[in-house]
């Protein structure tokens, strides 16, 4: 099993440029999360999907961030335009949603640097 796959691992862009991150969850996992992790902090939720439906996007800055999960499988997170404060690691995680335990498997993350 490949685990949760994220790309790119690293991205450096100038402010006001767009950027997109891709995530392929574990096969069969219906729940997918995007978290943002600032240096020295814990992950903070951006958006949670159950299948293709965004069931919790209350923390997503919708003026510049967008996400989609077509066909309930892989997902893309986009930032347009990027700001200096968006520099962080963007983590994708998936879960099978069984027994309501919400145990998650994380990808390695995409580290974004905005100059």
């Amino acid at each position, binding site marked *: 099993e490949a685990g*949760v796959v994220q790309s790119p691992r690293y991205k450096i862009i100038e402010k006001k440029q767009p950027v997109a991150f891709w995530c392929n969850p574990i096969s069969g996992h219906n729940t997918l*999360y995007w*978290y943002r992790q600032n240096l*020295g*902090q*814990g*992950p*903070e*939720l951006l958006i*949670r999907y159950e299948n293709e439906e965004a*069931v*919790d996007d209350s*923390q997503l800055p919708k003026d510049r961030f967008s996400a989609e999960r077509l066909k309930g499988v892989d997902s893309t997170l986009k930032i347009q335009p990027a700001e200096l404060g968006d520099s962080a690691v963007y*983590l994708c*995680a998936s879960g099978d949603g069984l027994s*309501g*335990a*919400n*145990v*998650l*498997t*994380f*990808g*390695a*993350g995409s580290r974004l640097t905005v100059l």
Partner: protein
Amino acid sequence: SQQGEEDPQALSIQEGENATMNCSYKTSINNLQWYRQNSGRGLVHLILIRSNEREKHSGRLRVTLDTSKKSSSLLITASRAADTASYFCATVPFGYSTLTFGKGTMLLVSP
């Protein structure tokens, strides 16, 4: 927003010693989980304890949960250099389905 708060923020010990990390949270929960993150990597699930459980073991890990105090502790016994990582507690608040993380404890185990 972050539900959990780990203590201490950083912990430095020698190999063979035990490491104890604490987590406090704000609202009632369905379960509490601990995750480990090695530098530059994603988080790895370690152990889950449900709200009706008080203690759980997994290998060198021991987790306790006190719902009356809204707190949990993670004990790593006979620590190894490979245990060097950040440790996060995460909760599923009651009536809510999203996993919410604390700020983490950074553990350094010296040979």
